[in-house]
């Protein structure tokens, strides 16, 4: 009992510190540097401590101090309650969804069974969807409660877009579920121990559609019509300042991480290195004794998993700074008239292949 409690607390603290403590501040810096790199600029490099700038790595700290001390402004005529809770509604789902994503296999450590996932739920992937779909309330409410036409338009666009792409994303997941026969993300991960069982080989179309829909769901360019700065100032968060403004950004960055983690788990072998199963890792580290081997395998699992996640974060950043924004009607047409039929055909073909096997 006590061991279980300690295990849970350690896992929660680990994921929390990785997400909130590492990814969300560092991604702001990465985004600036990546855009600078791609536009042939230097990027943020002025914040310094005793003359050291550390290629701009002090900027996250400077930003944090700045937003915490800024005035928290609520515009005239705004709905105070919803204006205040909207950023929380967008940030919370992004943090919660990581609870069901596995970041490693299952090991015996000091006679205690360790499962490297915070909550190994039977509904796994559906839990992610349940909470991801709530994020749209954050943007809708933010847009509506600000009492500003730009915000309002942004909120409406956001809700329509997120709803449309959620449908396609759900249909893509069905293909993955059919192939692996389970909703449990830890099992989906475990089944990809064999390299040729990786989701990318079994569901190549599913991967492309899922990744695109996930970016659209996160409202990042080329799908950022909801905040289109050339049309709507900043869309649904035009009227936000200080910490609340940053909460929308934190939500977006954490969703990038979650998307990377989901893509890794479902399509790119989760915590597995190609051609290396957990058992092979344990055999390889046999020299360190059973507990040492298990801990080393856990470390390798976690490093492998997060390296893959970081790769997909980089990919999303690159896409964001490469492609221009779609027009609103193009976004809708792409979602309903192209992705939805392709996703349905994908399910059909997957079913036929499974039956034929």
């Amino acid at each position, binding site marked *: 009992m006590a061991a279980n409690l300690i295990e849970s607390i350690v896992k929660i603290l680990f994921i929390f510190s990785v997400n909130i403590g590492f990814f969300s501040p560092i991604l702001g810096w990465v985004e600036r540097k990546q855009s600078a790199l791609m536009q042939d600029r230097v990027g943020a490099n002025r914040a310094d401590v005793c003359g050291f700038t550390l290629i701009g790595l002090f900027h996250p700290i400077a930003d944090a101090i700045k937003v915490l001390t800024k005035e928290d402004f609520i515009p005239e005529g705004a709905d105070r309650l919803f204006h205040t809770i909207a950023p929380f509604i967008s940030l919370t789902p992004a943090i919660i969804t990581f609870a069901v994503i596995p970041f490693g296999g299952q090991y015996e450590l000091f006679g205690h069974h360790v499962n490297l996932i915070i909550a190994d739920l039977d509904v796994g992937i*559906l*839990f992610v969807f*349940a909470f991801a*779909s*709530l994020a*749209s309330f954050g943007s809708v409410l933010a847009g509506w409660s600000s009492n500003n036409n730009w915000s309002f338009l942004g909120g409406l666009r956001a*809700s329509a877009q997120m*709803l449309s792409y959620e449908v396609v994303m759900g249909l893509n997941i069905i293909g993955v579920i059919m192939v692996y026969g389970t909703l449990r993300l830890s099992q989906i991960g475990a089944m990809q121990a064999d390299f040729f069982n990786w989701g990318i080989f079994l569901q190549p179309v599913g991967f492309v559609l899922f990744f695109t829909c996930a970016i659209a769901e996160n409202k990042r360019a080329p799908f950022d019509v909801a905040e289109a700065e050339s049309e709507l100032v900043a869309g649904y968060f035009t009227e936000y300042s200080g910490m609340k403004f940053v909460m929308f950004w934190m939500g977006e960055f954490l969703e990038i991480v979650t998307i990377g983690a989901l893509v890794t788990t479902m399509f790119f072998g989760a915590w597995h290195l190609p051609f290396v199963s957990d058992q092979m890792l344990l055999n390889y580290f046999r020299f360190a004794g059973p507990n040492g081997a298990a801990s080393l395998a856990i470390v390798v699992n976690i490093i492998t998993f997060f390296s893959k996640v970081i790769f997909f974060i980089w990919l999303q950043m690159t896409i964001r700074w490469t492609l221009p924004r779609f027009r609103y009607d193009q976004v809708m047409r792409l979602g309903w008239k192209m992705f939805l039929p392709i996703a349905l055909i994908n399910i059909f073909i997957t079913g036929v292949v499974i039956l034929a096997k």
Partner: protein
Amino acid sequence: MQLLMFYIFGLGAVLSATLMVTNIKPVTAAMNLIMTMFFLAGIYVLLDAHLIAALQIIVYAGAIMVLFLFVILLLNVHEKEGETARRKVVIQFGSIAIVGSLFIIIAHLAVIYPSAVKVITDTAYEFGTTKAVGKMLFTDFLLPFEIASFLLLAAIVGAVILAKRRIDDSE
């Protein structure tokens, strides 16, 4: 612990539902309905029906309520629509009381005549898991399931026809 959770969820569900029907602001009412959905999902989890809980949040809170909110915002429903609701508070509470007491009566009847209700005691598969629900839907309850999906299909076709007629008229 479970009982405590049940009281928290139950009280929350009743409270937010009451706030939903008595509030005069449409958006606040919609948000309260979402809260109700959440508390109900919590109760489903307590009943070990994890799949139903997840679907409750995805379908109702995540999809249908976003559409509700979308419509409320798009049609710009004002508070004066809520005013009519305020005048009918007595009717609202009356209907809540009637439906509630009906529910209690049915629950009591089910206890008195246990044969009238089909209790699922089959423990061949784990209760409430996705597998169990799926197996049941596609074996024992296939016909109701298919009828329900047929109804939904009819609704979709109907919506398309209605929308299409309006587009044709406007041209």
